[in-house]
């Protein structure tokens, strides 16, 4: 694996991660927030590729763990979106300002 390949992978993964952050910051509804989270996980998966060159078996284990943990987390968020819609009758992030106060 050439140094250029590693650089391309890291630069692309950082770019996707930052775009994910910007999408999350500027999101006005929770579905856009879910999409931005999935983008961020995509960036994390991409940055795992060079690890396969050094410790391939451990990297595969880490990849499986990351995939299942992140997909579980996203499923919880999907459930939270549905619950938010049931309670607030909308899915705007502005309606999630109270937190656990009430």
């Amino acid at each position, binding site marked *: 694996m050439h140094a250029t390949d590693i650089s391309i992978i890291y630069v692309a993964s950082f770019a996707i991660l930052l775009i994910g952050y910007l999408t999350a910051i500027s999101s006005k509804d929770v579905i856009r927030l879910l999409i931005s989270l999935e983008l961020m996980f995509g960036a994390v998966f991409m940055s795992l*590729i060079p690890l396969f060159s050094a410790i391939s078996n451990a990297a595969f284990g880490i990849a499986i763990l990351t995939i299942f943990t992140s997909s579980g987390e996203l499923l919880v968020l999907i459930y939270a979106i549905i619950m938010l819609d049931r309670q607030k009758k909308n899915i705007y992030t502005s309606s999630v300002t109270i937190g656990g106060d009430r």
Partner: protein
Amino acid sequence: MLLLSALACTAVLSSLVVLLTRDNFYASMFMSATMIMVATIYALFDLQPVFVLIVFIFVGALGMVTVALAATYRFAPERQISWLWALPVVITAFILAFSVYAAQLAPLGKIQFALQRFITSEYLLLIIFLTSLTVLLLLSVLKMGLKYKDNEGEES
């Protein structure tokens, strides 16, 4: 290297479309495209098991649920980008890209990873079936989105 650059550029561009598009439905479609590109980069390095996991879980399952959610909760599209935050993000991107360029990363060895008897004929058939199912799901979701657009056009 050319193919890797093309795939990485496509992934970054489709994620940029996610940021710039007004409609959540198209944003989720382009998010799925980004995930497919990331998975394809894994396939490029002969890491097919991870490709299968990412495509089936993140595109086939979660991607489809996200697209369906975006199609269900569809309302008047509006621009969702904070230009105020774009500046620090661009500065961070520049610093990160420069640090990767200046780090002069040492080349790593060739990726040698293979699961024992991963691609058997039965497994290949299963993968083809599941891929066809994912494509069918994608088409039906697209149809759902277009139907909504037609109804909206008739109302106005």
